[in-house]
């Protein structure tokens, strides 16, 4: 057997004793639970296991206190007392209370409500990240979560086709376009404060609070004429029929607008090739 470094050997011994102590703690609890070991022997076993754990942990935690002999036993007793109190508190007092209140809370919350709150949180957190992030790349990634959250809200509102269009066009198109623009206009690794600086952030936050307050007050207090029954049917076919009958002219105009945007974007963004009259003449 090769000679081990004595320091390493000491560490290994400590680790072994630590594992033994942890096993002893769990084993004593299992014996008490399933083999009907008495309370006093169980506590004694746990105390020895805690001594093993404290001794094993000594070089790693506790800043290498000179624990040995009586001080080790006393310190272990203190740790044991604290652990016993925590376990007693969790098992007898806090645990049942928490379980009981959690059961009541789950009874109050509907799954649909929970889904709405999660999706709304994703959307609003993404928007807040877009508004307040220091780095433009992080803003773009937050915008991804805002778009996905809005798509989830569309699904909750029974609008399957707009949700699909949202994912395909915004996440798949607009966001990629924005990331390309960031990549083409900024050296990655610049100071993010320079790339995404704010201007009058307190004023902006105040503006946001006033806007949210006003719009929320209006949304809650206005007497909306809500229809009693809302339908959740697939809408793609009805949307297609609406586009080709009632909204035919806007539909065609939209296609022309898209074509014009395509051509215009190419013309604006391309590098201008300057040709002087001489080169043209030649």
């Amino acid at each position: 057997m090769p000679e081990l470094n004595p320091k390493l050997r000491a560490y290994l011994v400590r680790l072994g004793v630590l594992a033994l102590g942890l096993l002893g703690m769990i084993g004593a609890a299992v014996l008490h639970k399933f083999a009907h070991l008495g309370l006093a022997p169980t506590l004694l076993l746990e105390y020895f296991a805690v001594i093993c754990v404290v001794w094993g942990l000594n070089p790693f935690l506790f800043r290498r206190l000179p624990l040995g002999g009586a001080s080790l036993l006393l310190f272990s007793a203190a740790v044991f007392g604290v652990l016993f109190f925590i376990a007693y508190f969790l098992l007898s007092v806090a645990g049942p209370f928490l379980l009981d209140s959690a059961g009541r809370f789950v009874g109050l919350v509907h799954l649909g409500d929970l889904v709405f709150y999660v999706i709304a949180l994703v959307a609003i957190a993404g928007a807040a990240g877009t508004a307040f992030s220091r780095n433009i790349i992080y803003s773009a990634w937050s915008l991804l979560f805002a778009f996905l959250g809005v798509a989830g809200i569309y699904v909750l509102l029974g609008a399957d086709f707009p949700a699909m269009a949202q994912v395909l066009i915004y996440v798949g198109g607009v966001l990629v376009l924005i990331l390309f623009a960031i990549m083409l206009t900024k050296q990655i690794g610049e100071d993010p404060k320079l790339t995404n600086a704010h201007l009058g952030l307190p004023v902006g936050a105040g503006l946001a609070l006033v806007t949210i307050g006003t719009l929320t007050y209006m949304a809650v207090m206005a007497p909306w004429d809500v229809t009693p029954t809302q339908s959740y049917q697939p809408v793609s076919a009805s949307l297609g029929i609406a586009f080709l009958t009632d909204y035919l002219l806007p539909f065609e105009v939209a296609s022309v607008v898209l074509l014009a945007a395509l051509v215009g974007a190419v013309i604006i963004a391309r590098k201008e090739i300057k040709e002087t009259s001489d080169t043209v003449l030649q």
Partner: protein
Amino acid sequence: MTSIGLPHFLIVGAALFALGMVTVVTRRNAVGILMGVELILNAANVNFIAFNHYVAAPGSFTGQVFSIFVIVLAAAEAAIGLAIVLAIYQTFHTIDVEETDLLRE
């Protein structure tokens, strides 16, 4: 019976709109401003679809049709806006909107 109603969705739309407006007002990066515009358009879409679901007569899809048009125009706006940003970058070598003040006297 679920307790989620029309005001919940309107409040989400209001929050998205306000945060988008803050982005537009406070950002100095032109790409960041475009992100804010996208957020505002999304907020409008949430309101369109929420009203279509809760207020419109069953079988009416006007709100969803308008949301599709808004998505189309947002895509066109993003393409043109980012092309303008690239052109500004080629001219000024920065996209800080505070420094691109050629027309300001």
